[in-house]
């Protein structure tokens, strides 16, 4: 086939077919429209204000690597006035996270952003390798998910940032919408599509790539030759999510707008008042001070189970009753350092480029 001219500038050779619009555009126009759409998402949702300190949740993977690059580009081009940081969580997974953290360390130098790495080991006293050797490969993702969420908030508090941005893209959000529908989790269905979430006193979290297709993120990384790490987590047996993703990719192949259509469907679910009323009010965990809907936060519950050798007590009701029957938690139980929200001047040291 003869090369076609770019639909936007009419000059360059078309090299990308945009999944959202079918438009055929050249490499330079692709960079420009991709970056501009993220900029529009940011400004239309008023995500930031000048002077904000913003941490980019960085895993070394494609999404967060492209996010760090684009955030830096837009912050300079449009003078957002943001102070940007990289925040990485080290779950302690040999052969997976140690390699991806090397990528993040290179990103720190390439993008000239301060980096903070916080490990499960220093926070909870348990690496994922150690957790898996105790609980096996069935519920390990529950531990990892709860621990990561809290670790990110604590890392953000250490960095004294106002805001965490994550690399979740349109495909990820559509996939989560599908999974919440399949689980019948209506309360979460409305929430999972919101671009920015903030609980009572938690740190703001947002997703500037909410409308960015995975295909375009990967194309962007390829054309810009960005340095990212790609292998599957060695402990990730989330077959259910895998099926949801394969289904979504099939839908996208048949009709590329399917991804945005599913996000819009999720947004259209308003949470009715009576459902809201059954959601628990937020309080703080009596043991570690983190936000919680119960006396103990999920991480403290899971950690107590691990420490007392009954890891399932944070997972099933039956195991929890068995743990309670053995009496209260011992005084010398390992606990998570007390959580304080960031305020005043930052007093931390971040890793310096070597």
């Amino acid at each position, binding site marked *: *086939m003869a090369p*076609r001219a770019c639909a936007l500038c009419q000059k360059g*050779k*078309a*090299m*990308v*077919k945009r999944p959202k619009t079918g438009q*055929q555009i050249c490499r330079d126009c692709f960079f420009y429209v991709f970056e501009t759409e993220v900029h529009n998402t940011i400004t239309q949702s008023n995500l930031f204000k000048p002077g904000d300190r913003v941490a980019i949740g960085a*895993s070394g*993977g*494609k*999404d*967060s690597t492209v996010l760090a690059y684009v955030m830096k580009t837009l912050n300079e081009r449009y003078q957002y006035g943001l102070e940007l940081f990289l925040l990485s969580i080290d779950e302690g997974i040999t052969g997976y996270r140690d390699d991806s953290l090397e990528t993040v360390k290179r990103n720190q130098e390439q993008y000239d952003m301060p980096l903070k790495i916080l490990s499960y080991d220093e926070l909870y006293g348990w690496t994922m390798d150690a957790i898996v050797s105790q609980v096996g490969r069935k519920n390990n993702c529950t531990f990892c998910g709860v621990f990561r969420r809290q670790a990110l908030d604590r890392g953000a508090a250490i960095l004294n940032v106002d805001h965490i941005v994550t*690399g*979740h*893209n349109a*495909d*990820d959000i559509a996939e989560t919408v599908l999974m919440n529908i399949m689980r019948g989790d209506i309360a979460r269905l409305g929430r999972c599509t919101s671009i920015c979430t903030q609980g009572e006193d938690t740190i703001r979290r947002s997703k500037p790539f909410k409308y960015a297709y*995975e*295909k375009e*993120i*990967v*194309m962007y990384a*390829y*054309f810009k030759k960005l340095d990212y790490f*790609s*292998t*599957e*987590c060695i402990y990730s047996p989330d077959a259910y999510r895998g099926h949801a*993703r*394969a289904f979504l*990719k*099939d839908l*996208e*192949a048949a009709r590329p707008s399917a991804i945005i259509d599913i996000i819009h469907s999720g947004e259209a679910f308003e949470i009715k008042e009576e459902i809201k009323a059954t959601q628990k009010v937020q309080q703080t965990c009596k043991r570690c001070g983190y936000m919680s809907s119960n006396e103990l936060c999920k991480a403290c519950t899971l950690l107590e189970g691990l420490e007392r050798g009954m890891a399932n007590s944070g997972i099933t009701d039956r195991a929890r009753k068995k743990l309670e029957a053995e009496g209260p938690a011992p005084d010398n139980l390992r606990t998570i350092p007390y959580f304080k929200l960031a305020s005043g001047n930052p007093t931390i040291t971040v890793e310096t480029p070597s």
Partner: protein
Amino acid sequence: MSTLNLKIEFGGGLELLFSNQRSYQIALPSLVPKDNSTAEESLAMKEMKALDVDYLIHHMRDHMLQERVELFMEKDTVRPGILVLINDTDWELEGEGDYKLQEGDEVVFISTLHGG
């Protein structure tokens, strides 16, 4: 019989299915069976076509892939979620599997399915 020299590259973790090697130089015949059969002895009586990307994908499956064919192919083409670029251009602009390969072409396969 004339052959064409091609460069194959992998990205996004797809190289793990191909002996963890990111780049290959291969040579394929310029005329190949229309049914994409890659067995040597079958050439004689077959209807032939010019070498295209569809045939290349079947050749990769039969002669280069080390494991788990379902992670590379689905229904006679690459699995959804794998991006293909021909000389750095999105293959959707080049006729996808019907693209007729030329001497020296570079074909890149990138998985989008690995963690963010």
